[in-house]
């Protein structure tokens, strides 16, 4: 910060991430609209509060332990080294608060730590936090209309502040062990967020069971229509909009990619490999287009699957969207959405899984397919600028997809949801589910409109009444 150029670079980076956080907030607004629109009229308020309160729950958890976890476990620990020092990310660090970057007051920090992190810690933390909200929100849609909010928030905390953070440390950091050993490449988080959250949602759905009446006695599913298709459509458009911020937040906006001997400033991915905003803009839009077309095509014009297809298309191509040609992104998006759609209905019929919003398909299947596809399309590409790291391979990506979907997605949530189920606090009683989750609010005196009307009549008697 002692000359104009370095100050400009730091403050630009600070501002860049701040803007991405604001844009990504739209993802959460979109998820709220979408989920409430998809819920039936009798469940609107419960659905809204379940999703909205995910924001403070994951925020506090991510402040207390999630941010530290991201830095601390990049080596496994025990695979490429021990726990890493991350003294700027523990909640009692002076750098987890307002700080001007001057000399540290604690021996745990160096002058370099404070100079680097004082202006970037909060915005980096927030960018990752918004990814955590997204991971939690993906679960939220799948389980609407029958999960208890308390249980959901505990599961969202597990995914948003622990499991996704561990997988990001392993496979979505420049020194993560999966990048080093497997050559894992997932630039815009097909697997680390979407694959993992989809696997987590599937595990919870197994314990939770379908909504009352979702399946007929012969096992065929009944369609439960959205109560407000406009909310669903606007929500999806907002998620698409917020996704721009998500893509930008996955990049480092400006850094010297020429190494110590030269100077060439560019944007870089989370792996510190070069990319440009221009490249990812091409690919974001072409994969969105591919997903929308295939969603419309495979569902024969169904509005819900067309919008889901757009999202699934971007998610499928995201793993390699820093490097693909736009037409590759387009075709890959179509393939992912076709497979995701078919898998959704196969799993639904075969295992009676009631995924209310198709989250497992759009995020879990499309994300995992995208991770594997990147292994073939980018076979032999360098995964990192660091010397000695494995290059990108199909087997590295297949292993990575399994770690994300199964190892850190499905298994921890299957265990956690099983415990909550045994404790009897996972699912809302069926009588209440049938009456509606807002039933208690409707019968509550504070919402009793006839009581208000009686008071109005008493205070302002009108002859016309």
């Amino acid at each position: 910060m002692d000359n104009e150029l370095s100050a400009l670079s730091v403050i630009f980076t600070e501002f860049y991430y701040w803007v991405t956080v604001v844009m990504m907030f739209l993802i959460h607004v979109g998820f709220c609209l979408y989920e409430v629109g998809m819920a039936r009229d009798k469940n609107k308020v419960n659905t809204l509060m379940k999703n909205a309160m995910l924001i403070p729950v994951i925020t506090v958890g991510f402040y207390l332990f999630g941010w530290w976890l991201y830095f601390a476990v990049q080596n496994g620990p025990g695979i490429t080294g021990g726990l890493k020092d991350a003294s700027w990310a523990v909640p009692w660090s002076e750098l987890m608060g307002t700080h001007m970057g001057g000399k540290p007051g604690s021996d745990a920090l160096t002058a370099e730590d404070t100079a680097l992190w004082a202006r970037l810690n909060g915005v980096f933390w927030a960018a990752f936090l918004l990814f955590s909200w997204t991971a939690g929100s993906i679960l939220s849609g799948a389980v609407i209309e029958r999960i208890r909010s308390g249980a959901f928030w505990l599961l969202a905390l597990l995914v948003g502040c622990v499991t996704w953070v561990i997988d990001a440390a392993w496979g979505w950091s420049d020194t993560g062990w999966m990048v080093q050993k497997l050559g894992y490449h997932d630039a815009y988080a097909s697997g680390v967020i979407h694959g993992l959250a989809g696997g987590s949602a599937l595990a919870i759905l197994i314990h939770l069971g379908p909504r009352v009446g979702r399946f007929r006695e012969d096992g065929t599913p009944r369609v439960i229509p959205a109560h407000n298709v406009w909310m669903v459509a606007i929500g999806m458009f907002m998620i698409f909009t917020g996704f721009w911020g998500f893509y930008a937040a996955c990049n480092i906006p400006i850094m010297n990619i020429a190494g110590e001997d030269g100077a060439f400033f560019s944007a870089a991915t989370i792996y510190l490999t070069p990319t440009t905003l221009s490249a990812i803009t091409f690919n974001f839009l072409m994969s969105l287009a591919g997903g929308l077309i295939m969603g419309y095509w495979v569902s024969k014009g169904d509005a819900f699957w067309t919008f889901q297809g757009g999202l699934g298309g971007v998610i499928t191509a995201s793993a390699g969207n820093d490097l693909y040609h736009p037409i590759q992104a387009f075709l890959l998006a179509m393939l992912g959405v076709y497979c995701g759609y078919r898998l959704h209905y196969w799993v639904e019929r075969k295992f009676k899984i009631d995924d209310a919003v198709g989250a497992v398909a759009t995020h879990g299947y499309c994300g995992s397919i995208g991770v594997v596809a990147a292994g073939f399309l980018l076979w032999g590409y360098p995964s990192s600028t660091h010397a000695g790291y494995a290059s990108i391979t199909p087997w590295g990506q297949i292993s990575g997809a399994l770690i994300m979907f199964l190892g850190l997605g499905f298994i921890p949530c299957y265990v956690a949801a099983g415990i909550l189920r045994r404790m009897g606090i996972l699912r809302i009683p069926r009588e209440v589910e049938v009456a509606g989750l807002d039933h208690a609010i409707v019968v509550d005196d504070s919402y009793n409109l006839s009581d208000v009307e009686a008071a109005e009549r008493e205070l302002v008697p009108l002859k016309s009444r």
Partner: protein
Amino acid sequence: MSATGTFDSWPADPMDLGPLYPLVGSEILMTVICSLVFAGFFIWKIKLEKHKYEKETAALNGGND
């Protein structure tokens, strides 16, 4: 000296400034309080839901809602 902060005037060299928030040194205590409040929120919510749904189920089964 400020009653709660580590400075009472803005120094000429900003690099002399570290943390700006009040009560520097109490970070661990604040973390403990925050953690307890956070855990308390979950315990409250789960108990509340248990009570609420028991009451509601009884009312719905009794048909007196």
